[in-house]
């Protein structure tokens, strides 16, 4: 009891040590930490759109440069009311989902083979590196010859565009699976298929998801290119038609739809990712 009192007495007299001149140590650990700022993104959007609206109304932005945001909104509303929105959106969504499903599936399959078998790695990695930088749009005429002017060529273009990033992401993800876990599996005599199914695949999931995000964004970009040829309906076709008529309101309405589509897909992937990768710390 006496000891405790003595300790307290010592602790309560810091000035005895410093000789009276006590200054607090300044805090310098701030910054460089990503914090959550809710609503900031919305503010930026509102500010930019507000600026455009003001400029086009006041006249210091000519209507040839930028359409009035409220007009774009009106075009969107009209598109929705007339039912044309879904007539354009549904074929596009179909092309997007079929094309990217084929591309992602093939990409993951080839990526896994490269990740698991050295012979596949030796044979295919240079090929993928050669294919990756080809602008897929340049191959569009070829795809039309190969797959016809119908849906098949559009699927093929989107599939081809999503395939290469998915291959690279997949074998990178497999390479990044903790070797210690694989050695653990071997030390417990797990079957090869068990190690692949229960250790390699789940371990590669985080990498697969980041590849998926990139691939799906590329798919949206390629959608417009795919609809350049022989598409009557589709968001891409709608934008291209508006562009050739220099109808800025409709052009921007289409662009807004694509942007929203991108945000929605990204959010959906994020949701699925969070659910599947709940084990991540």
């Amino acid at each position, binding site marked *: 009891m006496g000891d405790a009192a003595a300790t307290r007495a010592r602790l309560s007299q810091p000035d005895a040590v410093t000789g009276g001149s006590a200054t607090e140590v300044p805090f310098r650990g701030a910054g460089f930490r990503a914090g959550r700022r809710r609503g900031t993104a919305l503010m930026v959007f509102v500010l930019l759109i507000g600026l455009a609206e003001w400029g086009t109304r006041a006249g210091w932005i000519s209507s040839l440069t930028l359409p009035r945001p409220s007009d774009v909104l009106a075009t969107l509303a009209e598109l929705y009311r007339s039912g044309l929105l879904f007539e354009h959106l549904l074929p596009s969504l179909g092309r997007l989902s079929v094309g990217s499903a084929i591309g992602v599936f093939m990409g993951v399959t080839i990526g896994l083979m490269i990740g698991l078998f050295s012979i596949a790695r030796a044979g295919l990695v240079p090929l993928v590196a050669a294919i990756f930088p080809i602008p897929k749009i340049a191959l569009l005429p070829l795809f039309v010859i190969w797959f016809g002017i119908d849906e098949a060529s559009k699927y093929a273009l989107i599939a081809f565009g999503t395939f290469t990033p998915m291959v690279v992401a997949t074998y990178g993800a497999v390479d990044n699976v903790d070797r210690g876990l694989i050695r653990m599996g071997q030390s417990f005599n797990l079957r090869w298929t068990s190690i692949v199914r229960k250790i390699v695949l789940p371990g590669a999931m985080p990498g697969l998801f980041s590849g998926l995000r990139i691939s799906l964004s590329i798919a949206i970009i390629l959608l417009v290119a795919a609809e350049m040829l022989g598409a009557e309906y589709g968001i891409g076709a709608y934008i291209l038609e508006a562009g050739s008529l220099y109808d800025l309101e409709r052009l921007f309405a289409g662009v807004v739809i694509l942007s929203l589509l991108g945000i929605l897909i990204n959010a959906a992937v994020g949701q699925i990712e969070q659910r599947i990768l709940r084990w*991540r710390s």
Partner: protein
Amino acid sequence: MDIRIDGVSHAYGATEVLRDITLDIGEGQIVCIVGPSGCGKSTLLRMIGGLERPEKGRILQLGAPPSGSLNPLTYVFQDFALLPWRTAAGNISLVLEDHRLSEAERQSIIRDVLARTRLADFADALPKQLSGGMKQRVAIARALAVKPAIMLMDEPLSALDAQTRELLIEDLVALWQRTPFTAVYVTHNLSEAVRLGHRIVVLSRRPGQIRDIVEVRSDLAARSVADPALEAHRLRLWHLMRDEAAAADAELIDG
């Protein structure tokens, strides 16, 4: 089942890591291998379990593993090696799923080993929710689940803080008291070695050779932190290792 290490030598390229190691590991004993860092003790352990092949010499199993042993040579790793996407029970289940066991048998093994490692309440916890000590308990439970003939423990407590290490040592002693198991226990921590080892093999620095084998005869449960006899053993080991460790420490690492 015993293990005989018969004249094992090994080199990685030009770097000789082990030289002519001959050692018998008898049933029911914990053999600790200590040595300065880089002396090849982990390499030796990987060879005993068949994860690496010695360049010269052989590793022999003497006798058949006990019936019912699913994986006679079983590792406990320093970094636990738990699948982060599986719960504690799921991680144990993983090593049983490739064996022909009924669901009920599997569940009863999992329950049994979780109870033995005092983890019954944590069966459904993911590794990220567990402390380091708990994770290593799960890894030990996983090792016990396959009924090993010999446990190969590669610095199992090195990633833990001193207090947790003490608790885990007590747990291991209690486990051994209940059912004596055979183990090769690699460590650089001499206190751990004298607490857990029946025999302590001292390796020299690279290339690792057996410098001495110290027998500690006292009962595992009777050993405690402040035991003067253990302290004497520890000091003796330290004298054996001191110069080697200093020399190993001063070596340049070849790029």
